[in-house]
């Protein structure tokens, strides 16, 4: 089908895609370039988004004058805690996929039902519960409410149901106990779904804003997103430092995404959304 018409069509399609991509990513590039512009230049209206002069002064100020080092550390701790949640979801999915036990149907239904509950409904009670547990103002309190999600449990179960029972039984016959089967057989086989869920967990916990904002009392508990929100009043004064802070949040996530993006699409294919 390499007729003249189809080649012309392809060129048109690519042109439309390029235009759309440029428009969609414009705010991102505006951010990256404004981050290295001198404040004076960033506050001058211009159609040229490229910097005339490059400076890393504001990036330095974030970590020097401001506490972005602390915020970054806190954010990384939250991400680490959330990976514990990833393991919980994997174990949960495995239990539901490969064992028959009393209450399985009810518990799995319960896990799925939590997907339909909007965050705003649970927000106030969750705050009250965390307050009662004396976890407000702690990093654990920030991470705990979002540690596991019904959707993640569902995806793990779907994937692990496809692992052949013979594989597990062979390991058991070799004398492996249930933890060993999970750790040395199930997890390695589940690498594709772990990659997808791992990336989504990383993005979700790195970006999380509302809980850190509601739960954190002291500046020493702030995450990057809360610290960045503090720069909100700088817009008329110093957009460069705002854009530097935003870039510190966005660029690491973008790198993670670009490295893993093929897994993410594959993950959605696997999860059965194709049918």
């Amino acid at each position: 089908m390499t007729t003249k018409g189809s080649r012309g069509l392809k060129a048109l399609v690519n042109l439309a895609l390029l235009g759309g991509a440029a428009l969609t990513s414009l705010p991102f590039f505006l951010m990256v370039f404004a981050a290295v512009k001198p404040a004076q230049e960033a506050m001058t209206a211009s159609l040229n988004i490229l910097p005339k002069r490059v400076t890393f002064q504001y990036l330095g100020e974030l970590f020097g004058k401001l506490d972005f080092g602390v915020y970054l550390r806190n954010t990384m701790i939250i991400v680490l805690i959330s990976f514990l949640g990833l393991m919980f979801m994997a174990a949960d999915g495995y239990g539901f996929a490969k064992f028959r036990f009393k209450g399985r149907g009810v518990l799995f239904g319960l896990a799925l039902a939590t997907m339909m509950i909007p965050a705003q409904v649970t927000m106030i009670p969750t705050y009250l519960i965390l307050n009662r547990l004396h976890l407000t103002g702690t990093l654990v309190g920030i991470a705990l409410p979002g540690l596991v999600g019904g959707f993640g449990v569902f995806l793990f179960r779907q994937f692990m149901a496809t692992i052949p029972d013979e594989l597990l039984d062979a390991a058991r016959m070799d004398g492996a106990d249930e933890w060993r089967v999970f750790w040395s057989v199930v997890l390695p086989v589940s690498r594709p779904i772990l990659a997808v869920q791992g990336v989504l967990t990383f993005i979700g916990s790195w970006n999380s804003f509302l809980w850190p904002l509601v739960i954190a009392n002291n500046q020493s508990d702030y995450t990057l997103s809360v610290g960045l929100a503090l720069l909100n009043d700088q817009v008329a004064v110093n957009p460069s430092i705002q854009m530097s802070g935003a870039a510190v949040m966005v660029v690491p996530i973008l790198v993670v995404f670009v490295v893993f993006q093929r897994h993410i699409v594959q993950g959605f294919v696997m999860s059965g959304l194709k049918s």
Partner: protein
Amino acid sequence: MAPYLFVGPAVLLLVAFGVVPILVAAGVSLTDLNIRGLGDPDRIEFVGLGNYLKLADDPAFWSALKVTAGFVVVGVPAIVVLSMAVALLLHQSGGRLARVLRSFYFMPAIMAVVAISLVWGYLLNTQFGLANHFLESIGLDPIPWLSSPGWAKVSVGLVAVWRATGLNIIIFLAALQGIPPEYLEAAAIDGANAWQRTVRIVIPLLRFATFFVTITTVINWLQFFDEPYVLTQGGPAGATTSISLYIFQQGFRQNQFGFASAGSLALFALIAVVTFIQLRVRRRQDDD
């Protein structure tokens, strides 16, 4: 014992932060719990359905409901059509270029909401923002993006659409990869052109993905919160105050936990009803 140890931790957390909060919200919504009651449980009073009656009497609640409905009506078709169109084009193009561009379209979806608010605030700034400077350079009047009620709605809606398309494009792309190429080859042999193949074969085969994207998009707009919260704080004059934002303001700004819980349960009921209707309509369509 093994299965319970495997499912235990996650189920416990889901119950603690998914199921229990609903029950707590239901209980709290029948009381006058506020900041004083938080410190001293003796001061909490049972008010029955009082909070719900107060809610029904509050014009701000109805205004928030209307604002949210407006976003659903305009925003759902915008997101579904736009992400399906981009996915179809990316699939049609195929190859390395499409794979690279896919990342560009996904970029907004992975940006932190605070970063988004700062970047768009800068882009839409009325003194030196790129958007108005561009309009002026082609001879148009500048636009009060975030300071006029009408334009503020447009701006937060635009940012939300921009942010939501990435994930939905990926969902449609995954669905497109599942369509057997033989279907399209057979149609091509029968003389169907690219447009006919897309409209008559591909789009109908995307039915399940379209349904999934529609239902999640409806739910997301009903819970619309992030963009107005960070860009306009619900203003000007409540023009962008969604139900979620209204609940948040009542709960965490005014510390009216009981009243806000009643609002959140009303929202939960609304979402449940809308989702149920969509599932019913879909089932009926499948039966035909």
